[in-house]
C-alpha cells in the first residue's frame, strides 16, 4: 500500500533534505530515535536541576538557592524526569523496537505516531517555558496538590502552574495516542508464527504499558482540568473554604500516579528480560512466569493508589485494604527478580556493558522494592512518609531501577539504531561511576529520613549526622553527574570521532527479530521475515544454518 502511494505521489523535494526529512518523517525508527534523543536532552536538563538542588542541600543553612527557586527546581526536576524523560524514552524504545521485534514494517498508524512525538515535544517545551511565566516556574511539587497549587495569593499565583497543567494535558494526549498505536500494532501485525507465548518480553511489557496508560491517564487529565477550572474559571472543586474537597485531587492524582510508576518500570523490566538471556547465553528462566507476572503487576497496580495517602487520615479499613493490595504486588515483583537471577545460573556470562547495567538494575531495584515493603505497612509509613526515606526509595526504583535498565538498553540497541557499537571501555567506566555515585547519593538518604528530615525542604539547620549524610549525598550527585558525562563523551567518541566499531546485523548473537535485519535497518525494515518458531527466532535460525553446513 505504501509503495503504491509513493508511486502516485513522488516525494516533494524539500521533504528529502537532511533536517526536513526528519521533520516530516512517519518512520517508526526515526520517530523512536527522536523520542530517545529528546528524552536524553531533558534527562540532562533535569539532572542539572538535581545537582543544583544537591548543592543547596550540601551544608546546613545554605543560601545558594532561594526558597522559591528550590521549590521550582524540585518541581521541575520531578515533573521533567517522570513526564519528559522516563515515559517518553520508553515510548521511544517501544517505537523503535516493537515493529522490528514483531517483524512488522512500521507501526499501525504512522502519522498518529508522528503526532504523538510532536505533542510530546510541545508538552516539554511548554513545561520548560514556564520558567519565563509570570511568577516563575511551578513550585507545588510534581503532584501539585491543591490548595497549594491553586491560584491564591499565598499559594500558586502567576502562570507557572497553568503551564504545568497545559503541559500535562499535551503529554497525556501524546501518550494516549501512542498507547493506542502500540496496542493495535502488537495485536495485528506480528510476524507469522509469533503467538503470544513467542512474543519478546519487551513487547509484552509495552503492551502492558499501553493498557495501563489508557486506563490511568484520563484520571489525571480530569484532575488537572478541574484544577485549571479552579484556577482560571472561579470553580472550587478543590477549595475546602468554598465547599470543595482537597483530598479528592489526591485520589484522582494517585489513581493515575501509581499505575504511572508501573508504566515506567514494566518496560524497563522488559529490557532487562531481553538483555540478561542474550548475555547469559541462555533462554530467560520462566518465560511464562515473567510474562504473567507483568500482567499481574499491571492489574494490581490499579488497586494500590491510596498507599500514597496513608497520612491523609483515611478510615483504618481503607488503610488496611491498600496495605494488603500493595503487599500483593510485591509477590509478582519478587517472582521476576528470582527468575532473572535464575537466568544467570549456569550461564556463560559475557560482561559487555549492557549486562553490567542489567545486573546493576537487579541489585538496585531489589533495594528499592524492599524499602517499599516498609511503606506498604501503613503504620510504618506514618513514620517515614514524606521524609527522605521516600526520596531514597523512589530514586532506587526510578534511577537505580529504571534508568540503569535504560542505559543497558541504550548500549544494547545502539548498534542496531546507529550502526556502530558504543565504546566498551568508556561504557564500563560509565557503569562503575554511576553505580558508585548513585549509591553514595541515595543510600544515606534512607538514614536522613529516619533521622527526621522531611522531603522538599530547601534547607535545614541540623548539624551532626544530618550534615554528614547530606554532604555525602551531594558528593555522590557530583559523581553521578560525572558518570552521565562519560556517556555523552562515549557517544561523541563513537560517532563524532567515528571510533565506534561498525556493527554487523547481530553483534551480540541475540534472540529476537530486530537482529535479523541490517544495522541500521532499511526504511522498510525487512526484505523477508522468517516464520517464527519459538520465542527465540534468531537462535533458531542460527542453529538451522549450523545444521545445514
Amino acid at each position: 500500500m505504501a509503495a503504491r502511494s509513493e508511486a502516485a505521489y513522488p516525494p516533494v523535494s524539500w521533504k528529502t533534505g537532511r533536517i526536513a526529512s526528519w521533520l516530516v518523517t512517519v518512520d517508526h525508527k526515526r520517530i523512536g530515535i527522536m523520542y530517545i534523543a529528546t528524552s536524553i536532552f531533558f534527562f540532562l536538563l533535569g539532572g542539572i536541576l538535581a545537582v543544583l538542588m544537591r548543592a543547596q542541600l550540601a551544608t546546613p543553612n545554605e543560601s545558594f538557592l532561594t526558597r522559591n527557586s528550590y521549590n521550582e527546581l524540585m518541581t521541575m526536576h520531578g515533573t521533567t524526569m517522570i513526564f519528559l524523560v522516563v515515559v517518553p524514552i520508553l515510548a521511544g524504545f517501544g517505537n523503535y523496537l516493537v515493529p522490528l521485534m514483531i517483524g512488522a514494517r512500521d507501526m499501525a498508524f504512522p502519522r498518529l505516531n508522528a503526532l504523538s512525538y510532536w505533542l510530546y515535544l510541545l508538552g516539554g517545551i511548554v513545561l520548560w517555558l514556564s520558567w519565563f511565566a509570570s511568577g516563575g516556574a511551578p513550585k507545588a511539587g510534581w503532584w501539585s496538590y491543591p490548595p497549594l497549587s491553586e491560584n491564591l495569593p499565598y499559594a500558586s499565583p502567576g502562570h507557572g502552574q497553568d503551564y504545568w497543567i497545559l503541559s500535562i494535558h499535551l503529554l497525556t494526549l501524546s501518550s494516549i495516542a501512542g498507547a493506542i498505536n502500540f496496542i493495535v500494532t502488537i495485536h495485528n501485525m506480528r510476524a507469522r508464527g509469533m503467538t503470544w507465548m513467542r512474543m519478546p518480553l519487551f513487547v509484552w511489557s509495552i503492551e502492558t504499558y499501553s493498557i495501563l496508560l489508557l486506563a490511568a491517564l484520563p484520571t489525571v487529565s480530569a484532575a488537572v482540568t478541574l484544577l485549571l477550572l479552579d484556577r482560571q474559571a472561579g470553580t472550587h472543586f478543590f477549595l475546602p473554604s468554598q465547599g470543595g474537597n482537597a483530598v479528592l485531587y489526591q485520589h484522582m492524582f494517585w489513581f493515575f500516579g501509581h499505575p504511572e510508576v508501573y508504566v515506567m518500570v514494566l518496560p524497563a523490566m522488559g529490557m532487562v528480560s531481553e538483555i540478561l538471556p542474550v548475555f547469559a547465553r541462555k533462554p530467560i528462566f520462566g518465560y511464562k512466569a515473567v510474562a504473567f507476572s507483568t500482567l499481574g503487576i499491571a492489574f494490581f497496580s490499579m488497586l494500590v493508589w491510596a498507599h500514597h495517602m496513608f497520612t491523609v487520615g483515611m478510615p483504618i479499613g481503607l488503610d488496611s485494604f491498600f496495605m494488603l493490595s500493595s503487599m500483593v504486588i510485591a509477590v509478582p515483583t519478587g517472582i521476576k527478580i528470582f527468575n532473572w537471577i535464575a537466568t544467570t545460573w549456569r550461564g556463560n556470562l559475557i560482561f559487555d556493558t549492557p549486562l553490567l547495567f542489567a545486573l546493576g538494575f537487579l541489585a538496585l531495584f531489589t533495594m528499592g522494592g524492599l524499602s517499599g515493603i516498609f511503606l506498604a505497612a501503613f503504620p510504618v509509613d506514618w513514620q517515614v512518609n514524606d521524609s527522605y526515606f521516600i526520596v531514597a526509595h523512589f530514586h532506587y526504583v526510578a534511577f537505580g531501577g529504571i534508568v540503569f535498565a535504560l542505559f543497558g538498553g541504550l548500549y544494547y540497541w545502539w548498534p542496531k539504531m546507529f550502526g556502530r557499537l558504543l565504546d566498551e571501555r568508556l561504557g564500563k567506566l560509565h557503569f562503575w561511576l554511576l553505580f558508585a555515585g548513585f549509591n553514595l547519593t541515595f543510600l544515606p538518604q534512607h538514614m536522613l529520613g529516619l533521622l527526621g528530615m522531611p522531603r522538599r525542604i530547601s534547607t535545614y539547620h541540623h548539624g551532626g549526622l544530618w550534615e554528614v549524610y547530606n554532604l555525602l549525598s551531594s558528593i555522590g550527585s557530583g559523581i553521578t553527574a560525572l558518570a552521565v558525562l562519560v556517556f555523552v563523551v562515549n557517544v561523541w567518541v563513537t560517532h563524532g570521532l567515528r571510533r565506534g566499531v561498525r556493527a554487523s546485523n547481530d553483534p551480540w548473537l541475540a534472540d529476537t527479530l530486530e537482529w535479523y535485519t541490517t544495522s541500521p535497518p532499511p526504511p522498510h525494515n525487512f526484505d523477508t521475515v522468517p516464520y517464527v518458531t519459538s520465542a527465540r527466532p534468531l537462535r533458531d535460525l542460527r542453529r538451522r544454518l549450523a545444521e545445514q553446513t
Partner: protein
Amino acid sequence: MPTRVRRKLLSLLVASVSVLVTAGAAVAANGGFTPEAPHSPNAARISSAYYLILGFTAFIFVVVETLLVVFVWRYRSRSRDRTVEGAQVHGHTRLELIWTAGPVVILAVIASFVFYKLPGIANAPAASNPLRITVEGHQFYWQFDYPNGARSINELHVPVGRVVDLRVVSPDVIHSWWIPQLGGKVQAIPGRTNHIWFKADRAGTYEGQCAELCGPYHEAMRASVVAEPEQDYRAFITRTAAQTLGKQEFEGVCATCHGMQGQGGYGPALATNPILTQKAGLAAIVRNGRLRMPPVGDTWTQAQIDALAAYVSKNVYKGATSGG
C-alpha cells in the same frame, strides 16, 4: 541434594546470619538505621513493626544479592566464546511455586504483625481521659489550642505520661504534623479534622517539622513538644502562655519572614515602620495578608492581636527613620 550444593547453601546461610548480626549492631547504635528512639507507646509499636520488616527485608536482601554475586562470579564467561551456550533450562515449576509461596508467607507474617500492633498505634488507650488539644497547621507555623482557651505558637506544652489527643486542622494549605519520637505523621488538611495521639513517657523536648510542602517557608515550619511535670504544664497554660503570647507570635510567625529583629528578609524591614504602633492597621495586614504576605493571622482572636501589637510596639519598633 549433593553435598557440594549443601555445603554451599550452608556457607550462604552462615554468611547471611553474620551479615544480619553486624547489621543488628549497627542498628543498635542508630546512625539513622532505625526510626528515632521512641518516647510514646504508638511510636514504640511503629518501631517494633519497623524492626520486624527490617529483619525480613535484610534477610531477603542478603539472599538475593549474595545469589547474584555468587552466580555472576561462578558463571562468568572466563574467555569462553560468545557462541558457547549456557545450560538451556527454560524454567522450573517447583521453584516458581517456592518463590511465590515464600514471599506470600513472609508478607502474611508482616501483615499479621501490623494488625496485631495496630490497635495500640491507631487508637489512644481507652479510658485514658485524654488531654484534647487542637493543632492548627498554618503558613508557616503551628498554633496550639489548650482546653482552657490558652494558645501557644510552635511550642506545645504537655504533661508527661498523659495521653494527648490532637485534633489536626489547617485553614490554608496542607501541612503534615510529625514529631518522629512521638509517633507517625498526619496531614493537616483544610476542611478536614484529623486525629493523632501520643503519650510522652519522659520529660524533655521533642522536635519535629512540617512534612508536607506548604510554600516557600515549609522548611521553617518547625514544632517542638515540651513534655513536663503536671504543675509546670498548669503554670504554662494558666500564666506563661498568655504572658509570652506576643513574643511567641512575633518570633514564631513574623520573624520567619521579617527577621528576628524585624530587620527584614523575605518581607520588608518592620523595625522602623510606624504601622507596628497602629493596632488597627497591623491587625488588617496580619488578618488579611497583603500580596506575597499570607494571611498569617486569619484565625487569630482579638486577644492575640492585642498581644502582638503590645509586643511589637514595645520590643520590635525602633522608631521611624528620620528624614523620610
